[in-house]
Structure formats: structure tokens, C-alpha cells
């Protein structure tokens, strides 16, 4: 492809690409995101291509292998355009049927349609499905329209026109003014006003400046950044370009988790394509603006989500945060002024520039504008990525979109915001998902992970889980975080093992306060949130562990025993076969028994029992 040197050249290319697309009578959209790949979607894509060749339909049916649609649980997903017929759980063997029946004969294949687990109804079109219906997919909807490895696709749907607009007629101050007026706040966790960050960075002295995209999505249970970067990398790059233009940066970096190979690969392809087209490089679109982007792989450290640690890592050092008495907008990467934003924040920029701040601010709550992508996971019927206007209540998300509990047991709580967030009980599901309300309730929006937990989840164990995670991920530089988390975990472990003392709760609270006030970086300052929020809402569960030596949810290994109900046991022998510790014995077709002395309480037998004969007491 030849390089583009002016805005009008880009516009005529766009028209040409749109015309090309119109030539096809139908499109097959096949999700090739990480989730669907795990469900063998690449085999499906190959099979569909073979089948189209066989039917000689290659010139009239377009195949589009897209990024993640966010409904991974139903994968692989196929959408037949233009009617938008939605098929889920498609296997490579279905390829022939889809092409012959649906494409050639306009027949709908009943067995591939989506059945709503809540109502039992079957739906033909994506837009009718309750999971999608309640969402406001401003960012995610684009993933469906493009092949992430095709800059042509992105340009055809209007991509890079925000850049055109910014280069053609917006002064840096006007761009920043627009972002500020939109009320965009950082999507990575803190919710810091993006416009203010850009202003400070623009005003910081120095000619050499940087923009960084933080794609080190370390929050376990959140994957919206993965989805955006692997499904729509050009959107993120366009956002970064506009940011760079506004603050006066010449170089950008995308710092991606190495655990996301597809995101690394697709973003590298995107950068290469943009360079070839002349959208990255010197004198972009004939202007005086020059900019390039480098993709760096993270080394696998949660703490590198913290801005100063990420910058240290980009410089090739261990990811240790440093004191932020001077902000990174003044003293950042290589000690130069640096603007660091999260993937989702950058992805919001192009549409704000294109459609205006009023359009963006028309969604959301008083203090949190726009939409937010949430990763809905755990004990819930519809797991996946959901994008809703800020201010939507937790209840709407969990019950309306998520469809409620998947286990048959009532939902007890959600954990929001990852290791820096907290647990909120079902009684507080009236809370709106927005920065300030969740922070006030002791949790946070964070990057947007929402893990739903049913009644068999022990809240003390959840706090222990996060402390273990944080102990593992703390860089260890400062005393508050390294020793503080270690001692909190020591106390919580005592409690889950039945050696807890009532006065330890007070110590736990004091320790939590100390860490949050004195830790060096954001990881440490928020590390106590999982403990504080569970103490705040589930105090009685701590008390049960400490005073009665009981784990009400039946989770903490030291406080429970596994037994087999002789009434229910059919003597099938599965538990005996699967027990790694030979703790189960019994004759075939007679009730089995567990030897408590040998039992390590791993729970494997219970998870494998088909007659639910194994119980916890």
C-alpha cells in the first residue's frame, strides 16, 4: 500500500474501501479473540474458508475474523450479516450448514441459536439478546466490525477521522479543552481527570515528551484492555496520537502484558500497518506532527500497572515504583514529561474528538461520564464483557445483564476493582458503578472487574486470597507494603485456621490504616481494601471463624471435614479413583467412607461426585 500524505488522500482511500465492502452480499463475522480461540475458533475459520471455496462464494461472502465480542462463554461466536443472525457455540463441523443453509437459503439453524438461561427463550439476532440489550456498547461494538489485523477495515468504518479532524483544525489547547469538558476520567483505576493530566504534561517544561498506553492489565478477573487492544488496536493508537498531538509528544509506548500474546501480536501488526500508510512517522498527513509508537512486552508483574514502576520497566529495570512527590507528567519516562493512560482511556479519545464533549458527557453520572467496560465473571449466568453507562447500578449489571446466579445458590456479594478494590454485599447492589460512589462504599471501580460470589464463598478466604496475591506481587521495596501485607496475611491465616483471637481484628484494622497511609505506591496504599471492606460488611463471618471455630461457607480447610452421606452414595467409585491421597475406601455399589486421618481436604472428591453425596461440615 502506498503512503498517504494528505487528509484528502485518506478520505478517498476510505471511500474506496467502503465501496469495496459493499460489493459483498453477506459477511460472516467469526470471533477470533483469546476466549473463542480457546474454544477452537481458528479451526472454524479455516473450515469456513474451505467451504466457501468449495461453494465458489469467495467473491460474494466476506469472512471477518474479529477480536473479542465480550461474550466469551458462548464462544465461538458467528454473526451472519447483514441480517445479524447470531450463532453461538459453533463448532468447525457447523461451517457447511451455516454457508449452505443460512447464507445460500436464508434458513436459520435452530440448534446454533442462543437460549437465554434466565427465560429459556431463544433469540435469532444479537440485538434481541438480553445480555446485549441492556448494554451501551460504544467501544466494544466496533470490535465486531473489523478484523484487528486490517487497517483497511478500521479506516472503512471511519477510523482515523478523529485524527484528521484534530490535525486539520484543532489547536492543542482545543483538543485538551474538549477532553476536559467531556469529563473523561482514567479508566485504569484511579479515575484521575484525563484533561488535567494532559494540561499539566503540556505545560511541563521540555521539548521531549512521551505518551504511554498502560496495557499491563494485571487485575485478575479483568480483561477489557486485552479485548480492546487485541480487537481494535488502531483505536488505541489513534487515541494516543491525538494525545501526543495535544501534549507535544513525539514518541509513544504501549506496555502490554506478555500473558496476552494475541494483544501483543495484533498491536505490533497495527503499528506496522500505520507506519506503512504514513499514519505513524514523520509529518503525519502532511502536517508538522511527527509521532511513532513502540510496543513493549511486560515481564509479568502486577506492580508494573503503577505508573512509575511501568516506566522503570520500560527503561529496562526492575519494576519498582518510586516516590511521586514530583508527578510523572513532569518527571516521567527517562525523566521527561510523560502522560500515561490506560487502554480504555485512550480508546475513548477518538470519539470524544469526533462527536464532541457534549455527546460523551450525555452518558454517565454527575461525576463519572461516559461508559465503562466491566468484566462480569464468577458465579453468574452470563459471564463476559459488558459496557454500560457509568452510574448503572450493580444490581442491573449482575441481575439484569448477568442473569443472576449460575450455581442455584443465592448471590452473596461482588468483588469490584481487583486486588485494590473491595467486596460489596448484595444489600448494597443499589450502588451505581461510578468512581466516587464505589470508593465511598469502601471499594472502587478499578479497571472494572466484577467478580460475583455465591453463598459458598467465604469472605475471610477472599480477603486471604487477595493478600496472598498482593504479597506475591508487592515489589518489596517499602516496609509498609512488604512487612505490612505479610503481617496482615499472617493474622488472616491464623483466623482461617482457627487460631484467631478477637483482639487481632483491631490489630488488623490498625495495620490496614498504617499501610494505606504510608505505603510508597498505589499498590500498597490500596492493599488493605479487600480486608477493610470484608471487615466492614462481613464482620460476623470473621467472628464465626474466631469465636466458634467455624467457616460458615464451608471453605477454610482447617475448619471443615468432608464426609459421605451413605443414603446418597451409590458406590460408583469415582471419588475413590480420583482421591490423590487414597483417603476414600469402599466396596463397589456400597456406600464409601472418607478416612479423616488421610483426607487433605482438597475437595476433589466433592467436585467429582455425581450424586452430591459428599458434604462439608
Amino acid at each position, binding site marked *: 500500500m502506498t503512503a498517504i500524505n494528505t487528509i484528502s488522500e485518506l478520505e478517498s482511500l476510505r471511500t474506496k474501501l467502503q465501496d469495496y465492502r459493499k460489493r459483498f452480499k453477506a459477511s460472516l463475522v467469526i470471533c477470533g479473540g*483469546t*476466549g473463542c*480461540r*480457546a*474454544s477452537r475458533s481458528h479451526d472454524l475459520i479455516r473450515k469456513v474458508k474451505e467451504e466457501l471455496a468449495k461453494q465458489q462464494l469467495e467473491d460474494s461472502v466476506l469472512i471477518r475474523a474479529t477480536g473479542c465480542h465480550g*461474550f*466469551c462463554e458462548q464462544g465461538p461466536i458467528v454473526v451472519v450479516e447483514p441480517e445479524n443472525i447470531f450463532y453461538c457455540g459453533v463448532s468447525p463441523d457447523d461451517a457447511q450448514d451455516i454457508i449452505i443453509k443460512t447464507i445460500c437459503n436464508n434458513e436459520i439453524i435452530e440448534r446454533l441459536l442462543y437460549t437465554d438461561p434466565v427465560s429459556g427463550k431463544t433469540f435469532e439476532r444479537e440485538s434481541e439478546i438480553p445480555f446485549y440489550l441492556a448494554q451501551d456498547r460504544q467501544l466494544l461494538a466496533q470490535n465486531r466490525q473489523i478484523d484487528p489485523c486490517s487497517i483497511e477495515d478500521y479506516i472503512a468504518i471511519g477510523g482515523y477521522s478523529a485524527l484528521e479532524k484534530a490535525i486539520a483544525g484543532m489547536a492543542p489547547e482545543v483538543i485538551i479543552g474538549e477532553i476536559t469538558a467531556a469529563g473523561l476520567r482514567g479508566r485504569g483505576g484511579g479515575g484521575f481527570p484525563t484533561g488535567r493530566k494532559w494540561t499539566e504534561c503540556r505545560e511541563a517544561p521540555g521539548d521531549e515528551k512521551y505518551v504511554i498506553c498502560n496495557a499491563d*492489565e*494485571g*487485575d*485478575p*478477573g*479483568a*480483561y477489557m484492555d*486485552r479485548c480492546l487492544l487485541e480487537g481494535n488496536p488502531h483505536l488505541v493508537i489513534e487515541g494516543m496520537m491525538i494525545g501526543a498531538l495535544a501534549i507535544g509528544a513525539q514518541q509513544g509506548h504501549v506496555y502490554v*502484558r*506478555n*500473558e*496476552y500474546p494475541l494483544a501483543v501480536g495484533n498491536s505490533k501488526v497495527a503499528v506496522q500497518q500505520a507506519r506503512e500508510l504514513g499514519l505513524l512517522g514523520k509529518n503525519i498527513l502532511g502536517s508538522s506532527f511527527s509521532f511513532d509508537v513502540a510496543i*513493549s*512486552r*511486560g*515481564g*509479568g*508483574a*502486577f506492580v508494573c500497572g503503577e505508573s512509575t514502576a511501568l516506566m522503570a*520497566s*520500560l*527503561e*529496562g*529495570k*526492575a*519494576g519498582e515504583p518510586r516516590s511521586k512527590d514530583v508527578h510523572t507528567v513532569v518527571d516521567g519516562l527517562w525523566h521527561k514529561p510523560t502522560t500515561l493512560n490506560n487502554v480504555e482511556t485512550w480508546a475513548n479519545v477518538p470519539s470524544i474528538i469526533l462527536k464532541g464533549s457534549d455527546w460523551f458527557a450525555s452518558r454517565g453520572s454527575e461525576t463519572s461520564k461516559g461508559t465503562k467496560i466491566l*468484566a462480569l*465473571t*464468577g*458465579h453468574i449466568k452470563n*459471564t*463476559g464483557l459488558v459496557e454500560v453507562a457509568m452510574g448503572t447500578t450493580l444490581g442491573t449489571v449482575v441481575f439484569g445483564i448477568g442473569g443472576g446466579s449460575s450455581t442455584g445458590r443465592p448471590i452473596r456479594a461482588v*468483588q469490584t476493582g*481487583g486486588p485494590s478494590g473491595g467486596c460489596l454485599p448484595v444489600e448494597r447492589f443499589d450502588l451505581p458503578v461510578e468512581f466516587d460512589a464505589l470508593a465511598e462504599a469502601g471499594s472502587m471501580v478499578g479497571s472494572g*472487574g466484577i*467478580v*460475583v*460470589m455465591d453463598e459458598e*464463598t467465604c469472605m475471610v478466604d477472599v480477603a486471604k*486470597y487477595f493478600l496472598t*496475591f498482593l504479597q*506475591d*506481587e508487592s*515489589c518489596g521495596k517499602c516496609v509498609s507494603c512488604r512487612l505490612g501485607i505479610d503481617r496482615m496475611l499472617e493474622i488472616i491465616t491464623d483466623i482461617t485456621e482457627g487460631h484467631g483471637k478477637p483482639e487481632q481484628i483491631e490489630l488488623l484494622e490498625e495495620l490496614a490504616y498504617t499501610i494505606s497511609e504510608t505505603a510508597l505506591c498505589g499498590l500498597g496504599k490500596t492493599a488493605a481494601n479487600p480486608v477493610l471492606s470484608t471487615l466492614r460488611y462481613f464482620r460476623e463471618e470473621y467472628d464465626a471463624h474466631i469465636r466458634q471455630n467455624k467457616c460458615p461457607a464451608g471453605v477454610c480447610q482447617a475448619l471443615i471435614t468432608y464426609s459421605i452421606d451413605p443414603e446418597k452414595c451409590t458406590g460408583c467409585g469415582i471419588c475413590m479413583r*480420583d482421591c*490423590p*491421597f487414597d483417603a476414600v475406601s469402599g466396596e463397589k455399589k456400597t456406600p464409601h467412607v472418607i478416612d479423616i486421618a488421610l483426607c*487433605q481436604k*482438597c*475437595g*476433589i472428591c466433592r*467436585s*467429582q461426585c455425581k450424586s452430591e453425596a459428599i458434604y462439608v461440615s
Partner: protein
Amino acid sequence: MSQDKLASILEGRRSQPQQLIEVLQDVQKNYGYISEDAMKAVSKELGTPLIEVYSVASFYKAFSLKPRGKNVIKVCTGTACHVRGAKLILNQAVAQLGVEPNETTEDGLFTVEHVNCLGACALAPIVTENGSTHHHMNPGKLRKLIDSLNGNGGSSE
């Protein structure tokens, strides 16, 4: 250690200390771990003191300083997998193979690792075996997977 491969990894990156992590990523990918010799070579070629190479290699999770087994079983223990029973899966792997997480079996066939999130939370619990993903795992499925890898000697990465 093949010198050619290392030389090709270092190509175009010599005397650029900021490339340290990228170089180590590629060493890890090609050799399966980062040996003392590799660290010494990287230190010399990039012009980074050995202690800094060592401290970076030991800081990040992506790097293993010991050779890993022929089959690498990674159990995701992210929050979504945790609440759907990742602990049971890890228990199964650990008990069946008789090694602790991040250790390698004596015959060098298996390494069990836990990772903090693979970003496929909707399909939890997740296990990867030599890079390919298995979703909706349970202890039984993992037992069969390990058995099958044991039976045919396993596949290489």
C-alpha cells in the same frame, strides 16, 4: 547453549540497556529458562552490570532461572478462576505429579505453575498446557490431560 540463537536475539540490541527485558523475554522463549551463562552474555553485550541483569531476571514472573519440564502446566489462579475452584485444579496437579507449584518433576517431564490471570475469565477455570488453552477445567479433566501427556511422552513447546 546455542550461541547463534543468542546472537540473533541480541542482534540490533547491543549496547542498549533499555532492551534488557525484551532480550530476556526472547531468551526465555527460546531456551525455556534463563541460564547463568545467558545472563553473563546479555550483561556483556548490552553493557548492563551483571547484578542488574540478575535482579531484573529474578524480579519478573515471566523469567524462570531454572530449566522447566518438558510439559508446562499453568493453572490460572485469577479471581474468576479462584471462585470457580482453581484451588481444586491446582491441588489435583500438585497431588498427581507430586511437586509443589513452580517445581519440576524429577523425570523432567512436568512443571506446574500458577499464573495470576490469562484474561479468559469467562471460561474459568483455565489451564494451559504448553501454551494451548483448556477451559472449564475440573480435577477430572486435568487428571486425564496429565495422564495423556504422560502416556505419549508429551508434546514439546
